């Protein structure tokens, strides 16, 4: 057991999965000698060498396309895209090939690969360096979309993603990398992909969040408990797709009120799909309209306006109070 931040926890998962399976490779821009922009791949190159830790030229379509080819041949590439905003340079490879090879070849080929990308605000840079784009990947049949919220689940989910027989897009929130440390067991552990977790329980309200927004939802629940005496279920989604509808519906059937929090822009965002799933499964239990607290429908702004765009505790508490007063 060691106290690790998320960077170190992810690094541990990579180290251990490479140790466990000689077919696991790491590939990306400056992931090797340099150890990665956010240091997640630090020491991998020293430990496993250039054969398995591959510094690629600036060529995102090349990284992902070549990794798909490797995966078809049975290797297990873990690719890093430096910031999620750069992934449009390889989006066609992800959407058109990684996600569809199994279906297109009627199961004769499959693509066991992981595409890691830092996402989200918190580095005071605009647009590509701060956006949240999980909805693009969650929308694609054949892709899994995973977003951890802390060191321990990051480690376990990354290990699970690497062992998964299908392609997984794995988002890491930049503001979480160094946010806090957690006890992470030495022996490797995995978590089931596609399962949400209820991380706080209460009877009055359901808060759904993931990644960088989980902390915001938790703090809002704390405030509501202390100031309003309101008890909340807080659901940490962990996997955006496939969505764990069961856990969400079960909670809303209990509470009747729900606030969904995400950092992606509102329109056609993940909140809309979650809301539709609640309508399908818990319509008769609802006591108030489903609320969403999201980033605005604007390109991610520069540092002066960043705080006005990303949901914060005050916005979540306000939305929750409206919902409770409905």
């Amino acid at each position, binding site marked *: 057991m060691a106290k690790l931040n998320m960077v170190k926890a992810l690094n541990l998962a990579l180290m251990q999965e490479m140790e466990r399976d000689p077919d696991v490779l790491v590939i990306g*821009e*400056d992931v090797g*000698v*340099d*150890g990665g*922009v956010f240091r997640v791949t630090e020491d991998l190159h020293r430990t496993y060498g250039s054969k398995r830790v591959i*510094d690629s*030229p*600036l*060529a*995102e*379509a*090349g990284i992902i396309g070549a990794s798909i080819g490797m995966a078809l041949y049975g290797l297990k590439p873990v690719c890093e895209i430096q910031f999620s*905003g*750069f992934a*449009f*340079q390889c989006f066609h490879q992800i959407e058109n090939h990684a996600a569809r090879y199994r279906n297109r070849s009627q199961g004769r080929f499959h693509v066991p690969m992981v595409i890691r990308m830092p996402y989200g605000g918190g*580095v*005071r*840079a*605009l*647009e*590509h*360096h701060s956006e949240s784009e999980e909805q693009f990947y969650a929308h694609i049949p054949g892709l899994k979309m995973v977003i951890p919220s802390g060191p321990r689940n990051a480690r376990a989910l990354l290990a699970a993603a690497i062992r998964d027989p299908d392609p997984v897009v794995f988002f890491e929130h930049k503001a979480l990398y160094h946010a806090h440390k957690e006890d992470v067991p030495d022996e490797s552990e995995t978590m089931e992909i596609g399962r949400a977790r209820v991380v706080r329980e209460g009877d009055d309200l359901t808060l759904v969040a993931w990644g960088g927004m989980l902390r915001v939802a938790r703090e809002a629940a704390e405030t509501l408990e202390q100031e309003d005496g309101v008890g909340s279920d807080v659901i940490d989604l962990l996997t955006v797709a496939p969505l764990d509808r069961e856990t969400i519906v079960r909670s809303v059937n209990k509470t009747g009120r729900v606030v969904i929090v995400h950092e992606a822009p509102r329109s056609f965002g993940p909140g809309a799909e979650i809301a539709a799933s609640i309508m399908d499964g818990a319509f008769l239990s609802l006591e108030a309209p489903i609320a969403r607290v999201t980033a*605005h*429908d*604007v*390109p991610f*702004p*520069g*540092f*002066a*306006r960043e705080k*006005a*765009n990303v949901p914060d505790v005050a916005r979540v508490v306000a939305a929750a109070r409206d919902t409770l007063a409905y």
Partner: protein
Amino acid sequence: MAKAMTQKAAPGLGLDADLARKLLRDMLLIRRFEEKAAEAYALGKIGGFLHLSIGEEAVAAGATSVLRPDDYAISTYREHGHCLIKGSDPRRVMAELFGRVDGLSKGKGGSMHLFDKEHNFLGGHAIVGAHLPIAAGVGFAIKYRGGDQVVLCYFGDGAVPEGEFHEALNLAALWKLPVIWLCENNRYAMGTSLERALAQTEIWKFGETYGIPSEPVDGMDVLAVRAAVGRAVERARRDKTPALLEVRTYRFRGHSMRDPAGAVYRTKEEVEREKLRDPILLFRDRVLKPGVLSEDDVKKIEKDVNDLVDEAVAFADASPEPPASELFTDIFKESA
């Protein structure tokens, strides 16, 4: 086959005192401006990322010196110098870096996304390689309208392995577009050296593949840059021939302010060795020795530049942040 780099200014581009003053002033302006920007970044006045071109000033100064005001320039995120020398007001550039409302983009763009329509500066671009096809399109539009302007497209060695570099060069060659592809080869893309990224490290040779004039250029020699870009501009104006120039330069600072030492991927000795070829020092010697400029001339240029940059910082400091409502503007055309 290695090709001799352009060393000497072409005949006819004689170095008179006015030109010497201008080139020195432009290079010094970029240097001082960025030194001050680095200080402001350290004080937290500039957010996000800040990429300095210190060491590479001869490229922007030499290349822009042969452009007309109505020519276009388009660039990467390491574009402060390109923008300043194209004619933008240093005060508004600094205010933009500070995220203030009087910046070129109302403080909403920042260091990597400078735009100045008035001076035909088509922007900084943060996605490596992505602006190259856009440059080709601007070249197409010029030709379509029967104009004789050119597009100067700056990019780094890191863009060369991206597909869009090849798509754009092919388009420009195939359609005969007046674009000067200017690769600022500083030998590194973040921590990856040229040798570890490219099977063909003589970048100018890609131009030969696409059948366009191309050459390596000494990017620490402002007159060599001026001469090579001058030739390319002349051709492009005359008959829409594009060109690829591999301008060999070096960044003295880290990739961005978050990588100040840059010691992992290159040695201190290498950096110190390259600093001996500081383009500003080289040019200063070159104009002082034959007496094109006097020591006093140089001192005056330095003072003027320092004053200009101090004024830019004061202006940026005094400018307010954009109002909250600005978050929702400039997404679609606003109705009256």
